[in-house]
């Protein structure tokens, strides 16, 4: 188990990291970034797998199965949607009809 205070430090530093990443983002990327961060918390899938992997009673197994199902949906859906959005961002360089 992670030591209490060590965990507190991790919580704090990670929070600052998240704050810094978003702080200087142009508005045009807010939606993709929201979607991207939505994908990143899909890491919950890993926790769901661990929970199901250690389940012993049928009740726990059922709940764990549900958790993995939902977590996998979060991760996969978040990735596809973000990727589709970002795919469309192109600079004007090299585009015809745009030389003015």
């Amino acid at each position, binding site marked *: *188990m*992670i030591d*209490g205070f060590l*965990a507190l430090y991790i*919580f704090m530093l*990670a*929070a*600052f990291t*998240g*704050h810094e*990443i*978003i702080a200087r983002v142009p*508005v*045009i*990327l807010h*939606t*993709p*970034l*929201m979607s*991207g*961060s*939505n*994908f990143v*918390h*899909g*890491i*919950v*899938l*890993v*926790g769901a*797998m661990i*929970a*199901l*992997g*250690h*389940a*012993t009673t049928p*009740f726990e197994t059922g*709940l*764990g*199965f549900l*958790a993995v*199902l939902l*977590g*996998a949906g*979060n*991760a*996969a859906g*978040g990735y*596809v*949607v973000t*990727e589709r*959005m*970002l*795919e469309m*961002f192109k*600079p*004007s360089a090299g585009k015809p*009809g745009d030389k*003015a």
Partner: protein
Amino acid sequence: MSWLPILVKGCYFLAALLFILGLKRMSSPRTARGGIVWAGLGMLLAVLATFALPDMQHRGLILAAVLIGVAAAWWSGRRVAMTAMPQMVALYNGMGGGAAAAIGAVELVAHVRRALPAIPDTAPLRPESWALDALHQAQSPALAPLSAVALVLGVLGALIGAVSFSGSLIAFAKLQGWLDKRFVFPGQRIVNLLVLLLALLHGAMLASGDLTMPVILAFFVFALLFGLLMTLPIGGADMPVVISLYNAFTGLAVAFEGYVLGNEAMIIAGMVVGAAGTLLTQLMAKAMNRSIGNVLFGSFGAAAGGAAQEIAGSQKPIEAADAAVMMAYAERVAIVPGYGMAVAQAQHKVWEFAKLLIERGVKVKFAIHPVAGRMPGHMNVLLAEAGVPYDLIEDMDDINPEFPNTDVVLVIGANDVVNPVAKTDPSSPIYGMPILDVAAAKHVIVIKRGKGTGFAGIENALFYADNTRMLYGDGQAAAGQLVSELKALDT
């Protein structure tokens, strides 16, 4: 410790690093595409490493659940239209919250079982099995009963996750159009507060060690109910802020459950999203000049329905041919798209029209309000889908000073974000919201389906201004007319 747990921990470390680097790359348009691929690699690594954990059971079940979940989400994510993106984000986010809550539930139930006074089979302990058990406990904290801190965080994570789950599903249903009505009744706030207090009370009982099945069940029922009740009265216009808030919620829930499971990748990724999502929510609320508390507990639509403002003057129509001529001979044209353009699928026609203008030497800019569309930046995504290069797109703060020098502003499908009432009428529900100052331009042409009010149901003074002309019609048809009129000019 054998080498395998170390390898798994190493993979988690790499995954956390890739998430942070990926998000960092996503914050610049040039590197954004690579960013999601980096984060995706991190996820793949973390998931594969988890499969390799030595003491995992039910590997077949896990694989089946992962495959079903991935296939369903991949399929739905591929085929959904760009305009429906916000509700898909809400849906996937809700799934994440639900997963976090379910993990919390499993851990609580398992904790009850593990914390029971151990009834070891009285058979003499074989030393090697005892040693193996100790090794397991050292490797996988999930096998031991939870510490007090883990119990509190686990309950908190489950609460936040459950609220995010049911709340996001309501947000999804609302944006999808399945739930049209706002659900308001007298004393709603008190009921909501009561439900929240009940959820907290049961959470506190769990955290203080009163872990019985009825309490666990009641806790989850009240938590889910609170997410439901909290989201139902919120109007559609505020949904972006709400989705972003629930995104941050899910991040927090994941971080807390990560602590319970002793999984550093979950703690870091969850906390990064929690902080980033909170900031993003604040930015969005600020763009609408409202506090998050006001969005959640205010009564936006109710005030709007109450007092309709009187606006003097009349709406003056214009024909597509005249509008096309006006813009063809202008020096500077700004196009202000709103969600109406996206609904009419007019972005391709609008971009075709803009390209024709650019060929004629007109300086064309697209002006985007931060909350145009259903999410901040949603409009940018929709324009990008049509092929509009992002350097022609200007933010509100950059383009507002340019409007007085702009000859023609073409407003298509936008309403509240260009409503001057936000600056002039203190009684208006949108008073104080920063707007695109299009009324300052020499001429304004508004493409609009009819004479009705916008999404928020507020009269728009811009439509009655002296320098405004209304081009009535469906967005796509009107843009198509403009294109053909412009082409006719050259022949």
